[in-house]
């Protein structure tokens, strides 16, 4: 039955995360914007403690069957809402600050890859560390200097089997939180490499590279337009030896099908909705702040009026509200599908496209509408305008996601539409 009733558990998550956002993020958002590459330890430690108190499994929903209760009766299974809750967390924490959200030691993109494609043993090895004594971060290393959106098909980083291990060689750039995952904490990076360069995309697999692995070095930190609290690292892999069991997915190359590759790509069906949710958190923060500023000047929206009777500002605000809510529902549907174990590849990309568009448009307009106030670094609007743009770029640009949507709808492959 179609329903838009927010489950109580999600309501609780939203309340909790809003407190975190208001108290731990907003007050320091400007500081970490102005002190790029300074590690926000207070936030990281706080989130780590909070996560431990809540069970410590990290934010990525468990895919394991619920444990039996003491009486031996299987626990009654409620509707699965793990990914919906995760999306709400991403939204609210990004409403607090996107850069800081990306520093959350709770398992983000790398953990999502492990959760989506890992074996139970791999999940135990890599995901339990989020509940350990010290905070750890994870990251995903996909982009290489020669190719971004053509990834992972164009991967040049190689993984060569050598007995019980893989030896990785190559360079990765634009690794979000790479420094925090590999240097500042004992985390891990999911590195995409090819096990058979002659096999093209069919040979590409994600590998888990843990912090402290010899041959894995962070070589550069980027200076960015926004999300400055989050480091964006270059990672060089030079004869980097990792255990054989660190491959996510099948070690066999099936050249005819691309099943192994497709399985790995399932990661994006989980990660794109989170980026979309994060984008919409910034969009909501911006719209709320814009409305607050205008309300102080006595300007509020008169809902219900025909456009001929509305002011331009009212029209703008109404457009933004429509964009924000309709996009949120699309993102919510895409994570609901994950929870329901329905294929959500199309919806994940749809939500990503629209959320990227929405947050960019809303932040651009808000800064414009508030003139010198919007443009001033006294307020966070100009920062959100800068933070927003990343959402139209990472986890697949708006164009790559349009391509995915178009191929799906048209039932085209790479040959027909590229």
């Amino acid at each position, binding site marked *: 039955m179609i329903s838009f009733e927010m489950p109580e558990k999600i309501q609780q998550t939203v309340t909790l995360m809003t407190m975190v956002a208001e108290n731990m993020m907003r007050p320091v958002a400007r500081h970490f914007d102005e002190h790029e590459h300074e590690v926000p330890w207070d936030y990281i430690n706080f989130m780590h403690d909070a996560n431990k108190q809540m069970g410590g499994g990290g934010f990525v929903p468990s895919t394991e069957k619920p444990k039996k209760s003491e009486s031996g009766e299987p626990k009654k299974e409620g509707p699965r809402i793990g990914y919906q809750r995760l999306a709400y967390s991403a939204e609210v924490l990004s409403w607090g600050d996107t850069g800081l959200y990306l520093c959350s030691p709770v398992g983000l993109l790398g953990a999502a890859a492990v959760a989506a494609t890992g074996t139970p043993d791999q999940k135990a090895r890599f995901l339990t560390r989020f509940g350990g004594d010290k905070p750890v971060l994870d990251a995903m290393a996909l982009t290489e200097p020669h190719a971004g959106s053509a990834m992972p098909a164009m991967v040049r980083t190689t993984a060569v089997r050598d007995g019980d291990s893989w030896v990785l060689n190559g360079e990765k750039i634009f690794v979000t939180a790479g420094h925090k995952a590999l240097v500042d904490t004992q985390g891990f990076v999911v590195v995409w490499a090819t096990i058979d360069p002659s096999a093209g995309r069919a040979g590409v697999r994600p590998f888990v590279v843990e912090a402290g692995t010899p041959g894995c070095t962070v070589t550069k930190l980027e200076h960015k337009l926004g999300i400055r609290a989050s480091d964006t690292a270059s990672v060089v892999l030079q004869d980097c030896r990792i255990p054989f069991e660190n491959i996510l997915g099948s070690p066999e190359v099936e050249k005819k099908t691309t099943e192994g590759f497709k399985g790995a790509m399932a990661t994006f069906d989980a990660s794109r909705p989170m980026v979309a949710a994060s984008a919409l958190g910034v969009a909501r923060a911006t719209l709320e702040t814009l409305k607050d500023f205008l309300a102080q000047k006595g300007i509020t929206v008169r809902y*219900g009026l025909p456009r001929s009777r509305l002011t331009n500002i009212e029209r703008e605000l109404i457009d933004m509200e429509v964009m924000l809510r309709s996009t949120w529902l699309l993102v919510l549907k895409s994570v609901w599908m994950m929870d329901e174990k329905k294929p959500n590849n199309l919806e994940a990309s749809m939500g990503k496209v629209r959320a990227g568009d929405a947050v960019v448009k809303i932040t651009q307009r808000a800064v414009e509408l508030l003139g010198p106030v919007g443009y001033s670094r006294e307020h966070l609007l100009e920062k959100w305008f800068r933070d927003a743009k990343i959402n139209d770029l990472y986890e697949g640009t708006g164009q790559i996601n349009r391509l995915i949507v178009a191929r799906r709808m048209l039932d085209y492959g790479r040959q027909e539409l590229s």
Partner: protein
Amino acid sequence: MYSFEPTEEQRMLIDAVQRYAINDLRNAAHDADESGELPQALVEKGWELGVLQASVPEAYGGFGEHSAVTGVLAAEELAYGDPAGALAVMAPAAYALPVLLAGSEEQKKALLPPVIGDSWKPFTAAFIEPDFDFFAGDMRTKARKEGSGYVIDGVKAMVPFADRAQGLVAYAALDGKTQAFVVPAKAEGVKVGEREKLLGLGALPLFRVEFESVKLGGDAWLGDSPTKDAGPLIAASSVAVAALAVGLSRAAHLYSLNYAKEREVFGTPIAQKQSIAFMLAEMAIEIESIRLLVWEAAWLLDSGKDAAREAYLALSGASDMAMMVTDRAVQILGGHGYIREHPVERWYRTGRGISTFPGLAMV
């Protein structure tokens, strides 16, 4: 709990309505738009699907429960076939649902059974007014108390089937609040004007109607408290029209998508060009998200909460969606999109009307 899945029962209704929309409404749409006439048998067949009957409880002649969500799902499918045909089939709902949602027990018992019969009957509503700045919350058609009854004065535009109406619900301002009144077809002072000639909806007979000191009984007003207005009815109508916009946009999207896969340029289908493929992707994204906004507004209506703001936003988004999608559909067909052989120019004309149509339908 969140869920985006219709019930089994709704699924069956959607399937039935969709078959009718594709096989009957769509096939008749071109000729009906050109000739200005929908075959009566076509409308009757749509009526037999029982969309309205299933929203009215047994006590008043129907066989179900009212649900705006179900209404939205059905409206979407009907409009997927043909929005004008959809509005014809749904016209009695614009009369019956205000009675069901705002009427007293006596009004429901007296007024609903004649509408909910075996055959479709021309019951309708008079809502829109012929002014550029028409606003449902500030109507120029006025009602005033006189003795135990009411007197209505004003002019209404785009009243479906007014020339043959067996009854209509008229909206007018009473003490500054928009209220709904039941007007008998033969009431003195109801003057049905010429059939309106419009940009779209050629198949739907719409008329200018003048109320000249129309005297109504005390039982004509649909409401239980003068402190409340017809806001919930206006919201339900906005949501209904937004649902029509979703169906219309889905139709335009799929039609242009199929065309793009067939039509070749420089030896390859135009759908294989990013400029076209991206347009189609953006259309689909727009439709999918606005559709959920409309569903949410309908769900809010069903939950009994105030849905005025959400309904307004849904309509606002739906109007922009319909214009964006139908414009691109015409564009994708190129010159052929401009030719009346293809339905996209008709949907383009219909799409422009979405913001004006509230009052014509109700869920």
